[in-house]
């Protein structure tokens, strides 16, 4: 019940916002921020309770479970719960939505609808992370799609309709592939259920490798598009470029995680044998994504596109780790556990840092209406706060120790090496390219002579205001916290993640 409140509260408020026509716009925004703050508090309480529990009990069990039958003939229902893998993602989601709400306080275009849409999106995202039923997961998964489509199409800029359409169609393809895969899981099991817990306990299709492979292919395709991995990532840069800053932050920070989370929550535990059999392919896809994403990002002339492409790179690492976690023949459970933990940390870390980076891109857009590297320069002078924030976020994103990115990437590399040494060595070159591209970005944007596009000059080139800092700073602070004291996060993740790694080949 508690969890249901956490999930549904934003939706409820969204409906309320739309239903009260007399509500002043400012009040609506206030309610939005208050709601998201309440969500953070609610999730925070869950975290606190979770941490208070003796560790290890959440390896396979779920907390805050709620179960209501929905479509009884096919054993699909409203079943939600939280474990060590989903809780951090829920927390990250809540935080990101809070900062996006703060950020959007200055939104002037139909703010009430905007707030309602974001709240709706929040319910969808939280629901997807908490879902313990394949169909429920799919429902929320698809709803995020719808919500984000309208965010981009309605509040984006540039060629926003086209980008939104591309995003929608592309990821819709993915979600349908996912659905086909889910059906395969349903039919393959002895029990005929969509319940994730049951399917994890008794993985279906153990006796039919070909069918399991096909099902994994379908699910993998769907998740790969959402994640996105090479070569299914091309919707990403366009969607980001034309999305509003909070939309980008949510898209990259939260929605992409749905893909990787799906791998962790569905593909791996429910098809352990097939995952093991095809793990090499996952590793290759991860490595190619990491390198390709980094290279393409390096060549971008547009700062936001660059940030977008680095997501491909970072998600490539996650896939690498998850693939390596599946190579049970080559590595012991301990190393694979480290890799899995790293993958989950990387998801959280990427959410925080990329969210911050996209909001910072929003600072550029708000000042000058362009993200082009060529139009900006020397911003460290007039905008030191922006420069500092961007620097921290960039270094975090390139994996500097002390920030969260390192915690994820180090464990990914260290844990995966035993299983896939060559792949890790190749993928690790990605962190050099990432370093190069972020430092290049810093050089172009922040240093040298101060350059700014015409509109910014005429308005005066202000540094980040209090609202913007209030939105970005918490993300960076959390990243720093995780980087310095990762146990806060790892204590929650490790039991569940290592159990998962042990499940494969076990």
């Amino acid at each position, binding site marked *: 019940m508690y969890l249901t409140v956490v999930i549904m509260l934003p939706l409820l408020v969204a409906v309320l916002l739309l239903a009260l026509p007399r509500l002043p716009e400012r009040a609506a925004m206030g309610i939005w921020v208050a709601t998201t703050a309440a969500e953070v508090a609610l999730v925070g309480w869950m975290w606190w309770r979770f941490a208070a529990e003796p560790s290890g009990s959440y390896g396979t069990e779920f907390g805050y479970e709620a179960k209501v039958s*929905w479509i*009884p*003939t096919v054993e699909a229902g409203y079943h939600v719960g939280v474990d060590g893998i989903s809780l951090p993602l829920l927390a990250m989601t809540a935080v990101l939505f809070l900062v996006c709400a703060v950020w959007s306080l200055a939104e002037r275009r139909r703010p009430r609808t905007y707030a309602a849409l974001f709240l709706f999106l929040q319910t969808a995202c939280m629901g997807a992370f908490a879902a313990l039923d394949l169909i429920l997961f*799919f429902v929320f998964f698809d709803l995020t799609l719808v919500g984000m489509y309208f965010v981009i*199409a309605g509040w984006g800029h540039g060629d926003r309709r086209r980008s939104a359409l591309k995003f*929608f*169609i592309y990821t*819709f393809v993915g979600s349908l592939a996912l659905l086909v895969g889910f*059906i395969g899981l349903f039919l393959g099991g002895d029990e005929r259920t969509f319940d994730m817990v049951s399917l994890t306990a008794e993985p279906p299709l153990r006796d039919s490798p070909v069918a399991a492979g096909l099902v994994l292919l379908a699910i993998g395709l769907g998740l790969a598009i959402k994640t996105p991995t090479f070569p299914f990532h091309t919707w990403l840069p366009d969607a980001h470029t034309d999305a509003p800053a909070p939309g980008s932050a949510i898209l990259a920070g939260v929605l992409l995680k749905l893909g990787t989370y799906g791998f962790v929550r569905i593909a791996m535990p429910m098809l352990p044998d097939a995952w093991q059999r095809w793990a090499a392919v996952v590793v290759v896809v991860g490595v190619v994504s990491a390198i390709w994403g980094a290279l393409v990002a390096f060549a971008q002339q547009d700062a936001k596109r660059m940030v977008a492409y680095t997501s491909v790179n970072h998600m490539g690492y996650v896939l690498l780790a998850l693939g390596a976690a599946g190579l049970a023949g080559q590595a012991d459970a301990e190393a694979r556990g480290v890799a899995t933990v790293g993958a989950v940390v990387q998801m959280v870390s990427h959410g925080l840092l990329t969210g911050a980076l996209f909001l910072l891109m929003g600072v550029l857009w708000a000042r000058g209406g362009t993200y082009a590297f060529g139009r900006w320069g020397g911003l460290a002078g007039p905008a030191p706060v922006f420069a500092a924030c961007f620097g921290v976020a960039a270094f975090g994103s390139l994996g500097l120790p002390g920030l969260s990115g390192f915690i994820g990437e180090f464990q990914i590399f260290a844990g995966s090496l035993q299983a896939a040494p060559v792949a890790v060595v190749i993928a690790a070159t990605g962190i050099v390219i990432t370093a190069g591209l972020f430092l290049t970005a810093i050089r172009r944007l922040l240093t040298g002579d101060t350059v700014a596009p015409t509109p910014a000059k005429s308005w005066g080139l202000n540094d980040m205001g209090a609202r913007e800092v209030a939105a970005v700073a918490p993300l960076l602070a959390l990243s720093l916290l995780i980087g310095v004291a990762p146990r806060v996060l790892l204590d929650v993740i490790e039991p569940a993640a290592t159990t998962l790694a042990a499940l494969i080949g076990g």
Partner: protein
Amino acid sequence: MSGMGNPLELLPEMLLLTGAVGGLLLGMWTPQRRQGRVAVVAVLLCLASAALSAAALAGPDVEVFHGTWLVDTITGVVRVVVALGAAVAVLLCRSSLKGRPRETEAYVLVLLAAIGSITLAASGDVLVLMAAYLLASIPLYALVGMQKDSRGVEATLKYFLMGAFVGIVMLLGITALVLGVGRSRYDVLAAVLPDQPTPIVAVGVLGVLAGLAFKAGAVPLHFWVPDVTAGTTPAIAAFITTIPKIGALAAVFRLMDGPFADVPLDVPLVVAVIATASMTLGNLAAFAQDEVLRLLAYSTISQVGYVLMVVAVADRTDLALPALAIYLAAYTVANIGAFAAAAAAPEARTIAEWSAAAGHRRWLVLSLVICLLGLVGTPPTAVFVGKLAAFLAAADGGLAWLVVVAAVNTVASLFYYLRWIVPAFGGVGGGAAGSAASGGPGAVLRLPVVVVHGAAAGSIVLGVAAGWYVAGIVG
């Protein structure tokens, strides 16, 4: 042998018939401007019929008229859905026919066609099926051409000639069945047909399938759908593309589950091929459509394809019946909603015109988006649950390839639904000044808008409550 049974089992149909006859008589003495009272009578009787049917759903399966009328889950679902659909259709017709001389007759014909549709589904005898085919077709011919405008009468003519042609094919099939079996009841057919010579079975099965495929608007007998839909008014189109289809699809389901289940031919494969062809052709043809109604027409063709997935596996899996039940209801709601949106701006023929006329109404657009996304199968709308159930059933019935085809087609369908959603939503975004409100082509009618909202809400409610719905009727 059940004998005559209790004719009162047909009370829901009798109510509808009462509505038809009573409405006609009432209309005879009703002034032109006040024919709304006929609509009220019709709607009330539809609702009563639906309520009665819903109550009867809980009861046991019974046979009436010597097994030629079957009251069971399929019949029950179709009864409820058709009666409610007919009520909505009457409302929609009211908005476009208000005060016309033939208004009363339109309601009467709607009710008669509804009875025909239910009869298709409830029939337990191929001869009754044929008669139901007639009853479900003839009122529609008249309804299509009601306005007597150039496009309408052309549509009537095409619909009628196509129907007559297919009627012959169907009769040919029934004759073949009777030649072989000598009897027309389903249970006898189910028992004897498997032993009959292949040519007889093949012609018989295909003939009957052809007739029902025509009513359902499935390939290769779909040609009437776009022309008729585009030729008539949106309100009538909503009715024609929804209600008879439900009856026909339910009838095919019943046949696949009974008489055709054990024949030595691969009938499910043929149905699957029809399903594939329908969804694919419908989607492809809709791609470049600019006319709202034609687009929706093709969309209904493809939707029929999805239902036929379920039909194909009718006797192979227990999942088929719930899938059919939920999909039919879901499809009805979403499709009526979409057509009602078209009916809200009857003057607008193309998508652009529609967006100009109604795009500034944000709630209308929102509901339309829900209905269209519902047709795509986006959760949590009802069609999503239906599609899910259909996919499951088909996969469980050994037609996994069909599931893949259907998934691909669903993606393809997104393209043209978005072709309407995007400009409509753009109207919300861009038309803040409300310039389109005054200068647009034609006003927006109130009643259809209400129907759109109702459909949108219904789609979501049905989607969320799908479990209880299915459990209530199947469980």
